């Protein structure tokens, strides 16, 4: 009889099928039987020695620490589900999208920015699904001057979104409805064929400035907020690459005030946010004026939705707003020094 099995017997970890043979061995070996019983008594005595009913009453300071830890863990788990979905996008993207409404219900109101990132992930999944289904070239072509050529417009809109120096080129863009209005989705690709989605839209959250990064398998997600705009980058790249992209965008966002525009820029008052008290920051481009439906928009059904086996009334609809550049107000942005990232340890 193996020593390990005797201990497993003592601790109740023995597979069901082995219990009988251990017991018959013990009944034939009184010395071993005595030893096993001594070990069993040790376990019982340990509980008599150290169990305290008072431990069940959680002191308040433990309770608040536990609550904080619980929040962090729940956030992790939701982000993980999010990224697991994104990792599978393009493989089983449509099936996942069909089940997506369940995720949306799961997102509690306590994580508004995560809810935002969830929208971004969904958009990314749909885009990736399009790439997988039709090939990257076709996505661009299928736009046919429609949804995906909004990239040209979006690039004008967001000079900060030029990721050429990071080796990523814009391959498409579109407008999507989002929780609090409309959002812009831009898709980039690098020379290795890695796709990254930038999602910019209205967001309400207290998490201003700081980047939040999630990583799961080979998909990474990063999001941050500037004023009332949420930014989310997601792609099947290393999170360090994603972080560099985010820095490029966030960096450009804070200095993009002087970017040229085709349209007359309406002078809008710089909002005196608390963040601007830290350092004088140049005004930046922001999205909200775009978010009302511009005139002469055309609704086109997104390719991914069209391919979907089931009607999906809740699915985003691409909107072509190429010819309806709105005006842009100026706003303050948080000091970039708010941004933090801990290296992998």
């Amino acid at each position: 009889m193996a020593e390990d099995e005797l201990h497993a017997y003592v601790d109740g970890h023995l597979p069901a099928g082995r219990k009988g043979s251990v017991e018959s061995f013990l009944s034939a070996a009184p010395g071993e039987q005595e030893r096993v019983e001594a070990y069993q008594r040790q376990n019982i005595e340990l509980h008599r020695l150290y169990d305290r009913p008072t431990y069940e009453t959680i002191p308040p300071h433990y309770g608040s620490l536990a609550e904080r830890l619980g929040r962090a863990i729940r956030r992790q788990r939701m982000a993980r589900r999010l990224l697991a979905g994104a990792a599978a996008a393009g493989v089983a993207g449509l099936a996942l999208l069909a089940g997506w409404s369940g995720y949306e219900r799961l997102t509690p109101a306590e994580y508004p920015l995560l809810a935002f990132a969830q929208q971004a992930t969904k958009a990314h999944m749909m885009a990736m699904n399009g790439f997988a289904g039709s090939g990257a070239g076709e996505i661009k072509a299928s736009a046919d001057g429609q949804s995906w050529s909004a990239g040209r417009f979006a690039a004008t809109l967001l000079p900060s979104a030029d990721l050429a120096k990071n080796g990523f080129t814009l391959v498409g863009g579109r407008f999507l409805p989002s929780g609090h209005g409309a959002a812009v989705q831009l898709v980039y690709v690098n020379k290795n064929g890695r796709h990254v989605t930038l999602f910019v839209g209205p967001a309400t959250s207290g998490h201003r400035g700081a980047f939040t990064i999630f990583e799961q398998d080979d998909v990474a997600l990063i999001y941050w907020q500037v004023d009332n705009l949420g930014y989310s980058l997601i792609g099947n790249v290393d999170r360090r690459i994603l972080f560099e992209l985010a820095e490029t965008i966030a960096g450009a966002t804070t200095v993009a005030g002087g970017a040229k525009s085709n349209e007359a820029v309406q002078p809008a008052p710089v909002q005196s946010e608390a963040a601007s008290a830290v350092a004088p920051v140049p005004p930046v481009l922001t999205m909200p004026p775009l978010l009302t439906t511009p005139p002469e928009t055309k609704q086109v059904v997104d390719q991914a939705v069209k391919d979907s086996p089931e009607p999906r009334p809740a699915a985003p609809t691409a909107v072509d707003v190429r010819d309806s550049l709105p005006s842009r107000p100026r706003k303050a942005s948080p000091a970039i020094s708010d941004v933090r990232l801990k290296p992998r340890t």
Partner: protein
Amino acid sequence: MENRSANVTAYIPELRRYARALLRDPVEAEDLVQECLCRAIARARPWRLIRDLRAYLFTIMHNLYVDRIAKKANGHDIVSDEMVERKLVAKPSQLDHLEVRDLAGALDKLSTEQREVILLIGLEGMSYEDAARILDIPNGTVMSRLSRGREALRRLLDGGDRNDARSSGTNVQSLPSRRVREQLRGRG
């Protein structure tokens, strides 16, 4: 594993119990629990997923405990006279809770490594795999520490009874008041 609850509160009673069994001193034990929760929050990075909360918490507690032992060994920590006294008094006697007192005293004689394995498995009901993960040692090492530790306890307890019978006249005078005090504190 992953389906285990994210309800941290559910694990606090066993963390307190384990800390108390490790340290024996109630104040120090509660301090360890608090430090463990704070560390758990600080280490909960978004990209480093906590797959098993219970193992995560016990791993942190184990590491903190090992740190404390190392500090004490280097003389960085002042051990109170009371604690030293209590250690000295933790000898078996023929008063009530004889068996219990014996086990506590016998546990003190084990190596830290063996004691942790025995407490995680025997008291906290950890699987052998979880214990290996928490202590960051191979499964085989868990089994050998468990086997040796239990056998050492058994011999200590057998011998302890005899020693106790022999030495019953020597320590008894100073024991009762201290023991009562200790037990009162222990029940708090």
